[in-house]
């Protein structure tokens, strides 16, 4: 049963116009332009050529794999670390307020700034990280220049940057759990660990859903940090979907890049929709 909107139509018109002109039209237009070779001067119809090209890009397979690895890794770490930090920061420890700010602080810093800072810190010979390692006799790796490490280095920085937000969401989630549950659990003789697994984890599920979905979407479409730190390099080894798409755009292959964006849109939809449904159903069951 559709409930009638309590607002008159003219009230909905401004938002509706903005939605139509700035969201709906470009989305539909991008489906069309992904089927052409276009530049600012003209568009030639190309059929599905751009999609064929995108999937036959030799580095694309790598880009897709990297995107998934990156999203899963950062989302997983943010969720686990976020929850642990939130538990720590609600435990009534000394200087708790200050510590919460400290954890949240990286979220407030510009991503590009974080990227450039870590690019310096991770310099293979002069960076602070490897210099510090050399004091204890460890020969640090090329964090961003070693092709098999670069993606993971960026992922760790992304976790550092984003874990504050996950922590904040979890702190809010923990605050909603009534102390009665813990009291009941203690009376039943549950240990601290049991309380954590049996009370905290199930009852912060709404927060977990938010953190997992937000960080997965963030990871799947991440661009700025990768671009600031490695530009997808060395070579193509830390390229993700978003940076591959941007490179096609930069090169003037606008049709190909539009096709890439349509694909990215579909990938995100395919990953997030079922996940979101699954989480929401679980919430009802609880």
């Amino acid at each position: 049963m559709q409930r009638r909107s309590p607002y008159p139509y003219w009230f909905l018109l401004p938002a509706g116009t903005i939605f139509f002109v700035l969201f709906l039209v470009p989305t539909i237009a991008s489906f069309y332009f992904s089927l052409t070779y276009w530049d600012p001067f003209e568009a030639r119809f190309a059929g599905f050529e751009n999609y064929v090209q995108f999937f036959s890009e030799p580095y694309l397979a790598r880009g897709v794999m990297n995107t998934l690895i990156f999203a899963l890794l950062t989302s997983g770490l943010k969720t686990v670390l976020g929850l642990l930090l939130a538990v720590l920061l609600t435990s009534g420890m000394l200087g708790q307020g200050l510590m919460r700010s400290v954890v949240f602080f990286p979220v407030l810093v510009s991503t590009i700034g974080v990227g450039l800072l870590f690019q310096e810190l991770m310099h293979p010979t002069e960076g602070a990280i490897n210099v510090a390692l050399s004091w204890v006799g460890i020969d640090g790796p090329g964090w961003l220049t070693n092709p098999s490490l670069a993606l993971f280095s960026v992922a760790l920085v992304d976790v550092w940057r984003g874990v504050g937000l996950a922590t904040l969401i979890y702190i809010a989630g923990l605050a909603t759990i009534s102390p009665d549950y813990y009291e009941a659990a203690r009376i039943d003789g549950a240990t601290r660990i049991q309380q954590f697994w049996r009370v905290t984890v199930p009852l912060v599920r709404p927060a977990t859903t938010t953190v997992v979905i937000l960080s997965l979407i963030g990871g799947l479409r991440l661009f700025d940090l990768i671009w600031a730190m490695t530009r997808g390099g060395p070579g193509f080894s830390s390229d993700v979907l978003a940076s591959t798409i941007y490179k096609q755009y930069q090169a003037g292959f606008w049709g190909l890049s539009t096709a890439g964006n349509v694909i990215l849109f579909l990938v995100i939809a395919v990953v997030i929709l079922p996940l979101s449904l699954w989480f929401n159903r679980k919430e009802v069951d609880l």
Partner: protein
Amino acid sequence: MTHRLTRTTALASVLAFSAGALSAQQLTFLVDSSADSVAVTEALTAAYTEMNPDVTFSIETRPGGGEGDNIIKTRLATGEMPDLFIYNSGSLLQALRPDRTLLPVDEIENFGLINEAYVSTVQGESGATYGVPYETAQGGGIYYHKPTYEELGLEIPTTWDEFMANNARIAEETDVAPIAQTYRDTWTSQLFVLADFYNVLQAEPDFPAQYTANEAHYSDTPAAANGFSRLQEAYEAGYFNEDFGAATYNDGVAMVATGEAAHYPMLTFAVGVFQQNHPDLMEDVGFFAQPGDDPEANGLTVWMPTSLYAPADTEYPEIVNDFRNFVASPEACDIITDTIGVTGPYLISGCDLPDEVPGMVADLLPYFEEEGRTAPALEFLSPVKGPALEQLTVEVGSGIRDAASAAELYDQDVAKQARQLGLEGW
């Protein structure tokens, strides 16, 4: 630089006022943000305003690289392009659809003074010419540290094997890195491939035409694939500086100036950086063309200067072309030399270089003076240039991919560009 820019703008507005509101015309001018381009543009426009007090300029800067390409394309397509702008000659120009978007320059008085080889790189399909050279031609080759060469008694190599033999001795007998590579600035990784083109052309004179027609490729033309294998060879020999993956262009210039590295393959516009950052070490650095297999056919791959263009829909076509006529004159060359020094030969006849030029520039000149010792880089002979080359050369130079596979991937990359341009036969 910002300081200087403000001063000129202030000066320009004072001039605009004094010339009176009725006759004053202000032209807009878009330049890339490199210090040299901005300085040259300020000097040339100031000189022109001095001669024509009612014409003033407002200078705007843009980023370089792919971002700059897109700014230029969108500005042109939307009719928002300033009255004058600077952009590459050769393959990148073709993507701007010059016949449709740009103002021809064939009719200016000094057109006859412009070097013919250059003119062919700024023409549209219609045969009209759209640009005049801005600054000097560049060579692609190898900078070397002279004291290291003197200490070991090394000779300037005329073949690749001699070059590698020099590297071997440097590696054995000194702590100096034989070759500087700087992959944080990925574009710097392409030099061994791009600057080898003089040698490609000696072996395969028809390569550019066949390449444009999709008949010859990097992977099936051994002479062309050589650039990739040479990069691989240098990597495998372990000749690069330790931090090659994280070093920058400026680091590379510093390494060869101070003798931390013996060679740095680069375009000769680096002269500006040497002058800026290492004025005391200028005479420690020399330059030679990238050697090939045949000592008799030793020559330089040349990059055409960037060019000064104007959009077809400019409000002031006469003034714009009068200014371009001025830029294509010996007076303008002298102004450029006074502003940023000599970075290479001018392509305007009647433009002389001062008698005293830095040693690394003097090393460049003999190639231009002798017949047949220069050849344009491929991007000036064919509209097809793949954008992923710099990532591929980083991979080869870091040992991630071998030369043959990089050449193959580059051919696929090039095919995308040809299809985007709508060329026949792809």
